Each structure stands twice: as C-alpha cells, then as structure tokens.
C-alpha cells in the first residue's frame, strides 16, 4: 500500500518521494491510482567521490520517474557501467544484487552495441538486516523510512541487439524495494523482460521502454504474488516511436489476504510509428476478501495506422476450474495454494543464475526437497 508510506514531513534521515510511478495519462485523483508517494532513507553523501554513468544515459526515461532516478544516483555507492561490444554474444549474465536488509542501492548502465547479445539479472532479496541500526532508527522516529533497497537499471540496445532482463524481487517483510528500469531500443533490437515480484513489504516497480528504432520489439512477462499486507505498485510505459515496432505485455498474479496492488500499463503509439502494434493483458487471481486490486491499462494513440489492445481479467478460481482440479484430488484450499505455488515454481524454473534462485527460495512456499 502506497498510503502507508505517506508522510507529510518525513523524519530525520528520511525523504518523501512524491509522484513516483506516475502514469503518463492521469485518471481521477479520487481513485488514488495516478501515482504513489514513498518514504526513503536519505543518507548524506557530502564529500564522497563516486563514479557516474556516461551522460548518454541521462536521456533514458525510467519507469519510476525522475525523482527516483535522482535519489538513486545520490544514494548509490557507485555507478556500474557495462558495455557489450559490437556483435559479441556475452555468455555470463550481468547480475545486479541488492538486499533490502542492508539498504543497498545500485545504479547500473548497460550499453549493448550493435548486434550484441546479453542477459541482465536484477536480484533484490531481504538479505542481512542491520538489526541494531534498524531498531534504533524506528524507535527514535516512527516516521523514519523502512529498510530500503533500490536498483536503477538503464539499458541502451543499439540496432539489432538482443537483451534479456530478468528481475527477481522479494525484499524483507517490513522492507521496501524500488526497481526502476529504462530501456532504449534501436532499429531491429529485441528486448525481452521477465519480472517476478514475489512479495515483501512494499515493492515499487517501474519500467519505461522507448522503441525508438524501426522494427524494434519488446516483450514483457510479469508474474506476481502478494499476501498479508504486502504492497505492489507497478508502472510500465512503452513508447512506440519506430515504424513496425511491436510490444507484448503480459501480467498475471495472485493476491491473497489483504494485499494491495496497483498496476499502470501504458502503450504510447507516438506520431510517426506507422504499423506499430502493442498488446497488454493482465490476469489477476483474487484469493482474499480484503484484497485491493487496481489496474489502469492505457493505450495512447497519435497515429492512424497502428493497433493497440488491452484487457484485464480479474476474479477468483472459477467453479469449472475448481471442479476439474477436484477431480484430480485437489480441494479448494489445495487449488488456491497451487495457484500461489505456481508463481514461485515458474520463477524457480526460469531463474537464470544462483542469485535469482536464492531470491525465490528466500520467501517461497516450495519444499526444500523440491530440487532433490
């Protein structure tokens, strides 16, 4: 829930970031779904000397908005720049690991040169908690920010590049994670993103993809699970500028208990993007009586010869599905657990590296013997 982090005057060492994850096209304010305000720690960095990304990355739009970008740049111990040379197929994934318990913040820029290929993994886990520091801060000031991790990832994919991004997000139960991604795709570039939001106190996730080159393609699959009082806030924007560009956005998730989720997805068919096509679809399974689910799917269109579709399916397990699953030995409770487990099992099966697998195992209901 975004509201729980609202603070009129953040405590000492804390900062309120406003208009985070703002949807490009706003709806009624009373729906409280246009954006979110987050309270984050603000550590003084005066006198520090650290590396910044090349200025080229400043022009890459990021999903969570400029305030988060500025905050991450001010808080990250260092920026990491990786360049994949022209035509190279990089076998080793680029891994970004952050732990909410340790309050880690990462600022990463990846330049994928023409025809190159790379896999990028962001793994955000609960990690070790600095218990003493945490306890002191909270006791002294209830308005202090919760333990916070963040990752700012900016990717420039030049013509014909192939980029696969895996995001595995599961901060601690009382912690929050900010995940902001910006992608610019050149001509014939192909970007595939798989996101797994597997719970944690608050996960705020934003992604902006700029399909600047003709025939660029963007595919995004997001699976999420939130239970208890967990909060998931998502804002994803695809700017389709090039001709014949394609984007496919597929979301599916399970919400239990009193979980709260807001999803804003926007496909922006910009003037000149002739023959561009974009689709977005979400399937939400609601398993709790106190769940709050908000979905804001938007297609913006300023070009005639384009196609954009969106849809959302929200509901519980259907009687036909329950009857079918019962005929295989699953009670209603077993069936509902199957849907939740499936998110984690899919995440585990798709995990490309040990860091990603560790995030899944850290908070999953999967048996430890499962991999035996």
């Amino acid at each position, binding site marked *: 829930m975004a509201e729980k982090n609202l603070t009129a005057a953040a405590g000492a060492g804390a900062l309120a970031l406003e208009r985070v994850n703002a949807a490009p096209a706003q709806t009624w304010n009373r729906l409280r779904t246009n954006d979110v305000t987050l309270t984050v720690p603000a550590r003084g960095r005066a006198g520090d000397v650290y590396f910044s990304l090349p200025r080229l990355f400043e022009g890459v739009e990021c999903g969570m908005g400029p305030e988060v970008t500025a905050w991450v740049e001010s808080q990250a111990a260092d920026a990491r720049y990786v360049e994949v040379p022209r035509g190279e197929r990089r076998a080793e994934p680029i891994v970004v690991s952050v732990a909410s318990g340790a309050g880690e913040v990462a600022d990463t820029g990846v330049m994928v040169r023409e025809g190159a290929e790379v896999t990028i993994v962001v793994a955000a886990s609960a990690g070790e908690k600095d218990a003493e520091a945490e306890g002191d801060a909270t006791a002294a000031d209830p308005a202090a920010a919760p333990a916070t991790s963040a990752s700012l990832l900016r990717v420039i994919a030049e013509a014909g590049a192939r980029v696969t991004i895996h995001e595995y997000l599961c901060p601690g139960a009382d912690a929050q994670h900010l995940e902001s991604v910006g992608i610019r795709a050149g001509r014939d570039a192909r970007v595939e993103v798989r996101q797994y939001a597997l719970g944690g106190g608050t996960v705020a996730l934003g992604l902006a993809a700029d399909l600047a080159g003709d025939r660029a393609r963007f595919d995004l699959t997001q699976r999420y699970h939130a239970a208890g009082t967990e909060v998931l806030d998502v804002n994803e924007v695809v700017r389709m500028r090039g001709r014949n560009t394609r984007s496919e956005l597929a979301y599916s998730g399970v919400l239990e208990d009193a979980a709260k989720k807001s999803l804003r997805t926007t496909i922006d068919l910009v003037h000149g993007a002739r023959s561009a096509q974009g689709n977005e679809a979400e399937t939400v399974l609601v398993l709790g009586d106190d769940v709050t689910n908000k979905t804001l799917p938007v297609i913006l269109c300023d070009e005639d010869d384009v196609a954009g579709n969106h849809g959302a399916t929200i509901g519980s397990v259907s009687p036909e599905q329950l009857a079918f699953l*019962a005929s295989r030995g699953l009670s209603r409770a077993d069936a509902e657990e199957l849907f939740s487990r499936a998110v984690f099992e899919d995440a585990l*099966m798709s995990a490309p590296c040990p860091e990603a697998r560790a995030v899944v195992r850290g908070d999953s209901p999967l048996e430890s013997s499962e991999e*035996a």
Partner: protein
Amino acid sequence: MADQLLNVSALSAGTEDKPILHGVDLAVGAGECHVLMGPNGAGKSTLGHVIMGDPAYAVTGGSITFDGADVTELTSDKRSLAGIFLSYQAPVEVPGVPLYSFLRTICQMRPELKTTARKFRQRVGEIADQLELDQSFLMRELNVGFSGGEKKKIEMLQLLLLQPKLAILDETDSGLDVDALGIVSRGIQAYREQVGGALIVITHNTRILERLSVDRTHVMVHGHMVAEGDASLIADIDANGFERFERALGERDEACVDCPGCPKAGDAE
C-alpha cells in the same frame, strides 16, 4: 464377476432445475472394462461426472459405492484420492498454473506416489515420450492454448501418472485424428497393462475399443440404463444404431404414463 469395485444403485441425479439420470444401475468389477454407449443427450457424460462427484450435479436418489465404501456424499477431491479418475471430454483451461507444477502437486497429494523431484521428472518424461508429447509442453499453462488432441494426451498423461483403480474416459476419442487416436489408445492399453485398473469408456466410436478387451457393454437412453450385454452388443449397435432402444423406452414410458409422480419424468439433455 471380479471383486466389485463400483456399484451404482438406483441413481437419480440432475442439475438444479432438471432431472437427468433416472434410477441408473451400474456395477463394475475390479480390473474390468465396461463400455457405455448411447445417443447424444442420453446422460452418459452426466453419469461419469456424477460418479466423480462433480458439484454441478445433485444426487436425488440412490447410492454410489466404491471399493467397499459409500461415496455418495463424498466430495470430488476425496473420490479422486480414493482412486476414481474422470478424463474430461473438454479439459478445462487453468491459466497461471504450469502443467509440470500441476502434475507434481496432484502426485504429491497421494502418499503412494510421493517421490523426489528427480524421479518424478524422469517418470513424467517417460510417459510424455510414450504419448509422443513434446516435453516443452510441461512448462506451458495447464490446457491453455493446446489443441484438442494435445489436451487428450495430457489427460492420458495424468491417467498413467495417477494410476487410479477406476478410470472413466468421457469421449476421450472425440476430436482426435487417426494418429492421435492410436497414441491415446496405446495409452489406455498401457494403463490396463501396467495398473490393471477398471475402465468405463464412454464413446460413440468403436475404433478406440479395438485394442481393449471389453467385459460389459451398457446402453443409456434419455437418462435410463436400457440394455446391458457383452462385447458383441457393440457390433450390434454399430450395425443397427440406438433406435430400437429408444423405441423400447418410449413404449415403457407410455405404459406408466398414468403413474402419478413418475421418477422417469424429464429427459436427459
């Protein structure tokens, strides 16, 4: 007859507003193969679903005994765990659940089938090969986007994995091409050979029966069980159709039309 496994006695059932089955009797011995035939709308699929405990249907009379226990009031999941399996005519799509996760879960529900992930993967792989099912299907969502033939193969995969004592195959052959029908038939044959379970095959097509040794044949018309015989009845129906059974039932119903509160009122659809 072998030891009795299933006994359906004077079973009447239907949906909330329509009676479908009228006093149906059916007895199946352990390891036997029974064929259930009848024209469209006879209530064959309904009988299969009622035996399975589908909550879409309510039992209004009679009883179902399975493996020595009265299961009439048991929920479908408990009947499944007791050893009854129903292969759906149109398997339900379950988005969000990968086939592999589903298979793993339904096996883990049964103590006798619990095993390590490694052995399970091996077992599933063997059966998938046997059914000529691409193993990449295991990562796809359950029944989502599969062709009719692929869905039926996945039903057979579950049958061979779960090894039930009784399998009810509800028109498993419908919508299959010749090659797929051959593969599914071999799957059913493997179930009989490896598990030795009993079968109730609901079908209009005798090709699926070519590889099976049929013990009894039953004929349903308008929710009534109207005839029973050995395997030769299948050839008879193939040659002459169901007309004589429908006519006989019509004459029987005319004879009792004056009977007030007749339980035979209402037809299956």
